[in-house]
């Protein structure tokens, strides 16, 4: 591979990484910070409600104490399109959750990116912004430069 080709490849890699930046950016809501945490626990409630679906989960911390976590998802109208229903979970289910954001305050509150069902199936959602980052294709055209 000659130097020119190499340069093109490298520049492409760099540009791709830059293009990924918006995906890594903060979700914008002041109450949360981006943080991926994996937690195993027992479901105590699966609330199929507006504005957002909530999951309550009892998780044992390192000291053996039970911590009552609340997971925030998105509206039922969105969740159904990712395969979730009002019956996806029930109290007593042993599951694993993966957070996308956790409360800045330190409260055990999180936004969820994934839920691993008792049967091992991995369920994903698009996260907080209901996919706006993907949906807005022509916004930039209207931006004030």
């Amino acid at each position, binding site marked *: 591979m000659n130097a020119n080709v190499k340069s093109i490849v490298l*520049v492409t890699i760099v540009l791709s990484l830059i293009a990924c930046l918006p995906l890594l950016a903060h979700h914008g809501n002041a109450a949360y910070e981006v943080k991926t945490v994996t937690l195993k626990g027992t479901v105590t409630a699966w609330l199929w409600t507006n504005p957002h679906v*909530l999951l309550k989960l009892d998780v044992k911390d390192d000291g053996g104490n039970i911590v009552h976590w609340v997971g925030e998802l998105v509206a039922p109208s969105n969740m159904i399109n990712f395969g979730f229903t009002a019956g996806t979970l029930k109290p007593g289910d042993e599951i694993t959750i993966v957070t996308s954001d956790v409360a800045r305050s330190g409260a055990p509150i999180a936004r969820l990116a994934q839920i691993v069902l008792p049967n091992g199936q991995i369920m994903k959602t698009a996260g907080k912004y209901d996919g*706006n980052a993907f949906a807005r294709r022509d916004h930039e055209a209207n931006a004030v430069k």
Partner: protein
Amino acid sequence: MHKRFLALSIAAFASLIFAPAVAMHAQYAPVNPDELEVHVDGWNRPIPRIDQLPKNSAPAPRRDISGTWEPAEGWRNGVQAQGAYNYPMDGKHPLPYTPEGEKAWKEHKYGDGFGSYPLAEVNDPFKMCDPIGFPRIDLHDLRAIQIVQTPKKTLVVYENDQVWRSIWTDGRDFPKITEPRWYGYSIGKWADDYTFVVETTGLDERTWIDNTGRPHTKDLKVEEQFHRVNHDLMELTLTIIDPKYYTKPWNALDKYPLRLQTDSFDIREMVCSESEAEIYNKEIAEEAAAAQNQKNQTQKDQNQKNK
């Protein structure tokens, strides 16, 4: 050789900057929803996503916008969580506020987008299930709508909040408005065979224009243009006219595309229930606020100790 060195340096620099972030997110990187989503209607039947339906670009029927419509770019495209589609709250789309307009906006503590407030401080009236109102019903969570035309009026039925608007087409004029309404008073006229123009006035000033608290006065006038391009496609332009708060009219939507959905599509419920909102506010907002207060107190105590 020099170029090569430059490219290598850029690459090395980039990997240093980006590698930790990429590695951290690699396993649970945000998912492109297009790859995951199915589309399910209210009857719990998977149906083709609107962008995957066979296209029918036959001419539109004359003076007819009836049918069930969804955002043409996919069901999630009309969510507009960060504000009106054409003016998202991202710091790059300033509105032509008057000083009074800007002042009113600053009193609205919204929960999404650039400069949003912590949940516990948010004073969005829709958060406590006040009616979402017009025009916010077009500018926040615009999902499936059904348009029904009768000889004297046209109805727009919305998935969001399970509400409808009546647009009178019987030639009447606006009433002498003494009672503002959440959804206002609407009159529609055909500008041509494919363009239905609706004017709405008499709007309740407690409502926000969009999810990021853009304010309006009771003198707000909204113009909507439903332009049917062909059988499948309709474009919605929505103009905000409120000289007290905005120095010039602005298009919150500009030819926003909607596509005709199959007529057997069941529009699901999406209702703001007070008891559900209360649970949400308690579990998410109040809990986070309480923890924040405790954290602040601990910090204060610590500072005191260190003195």
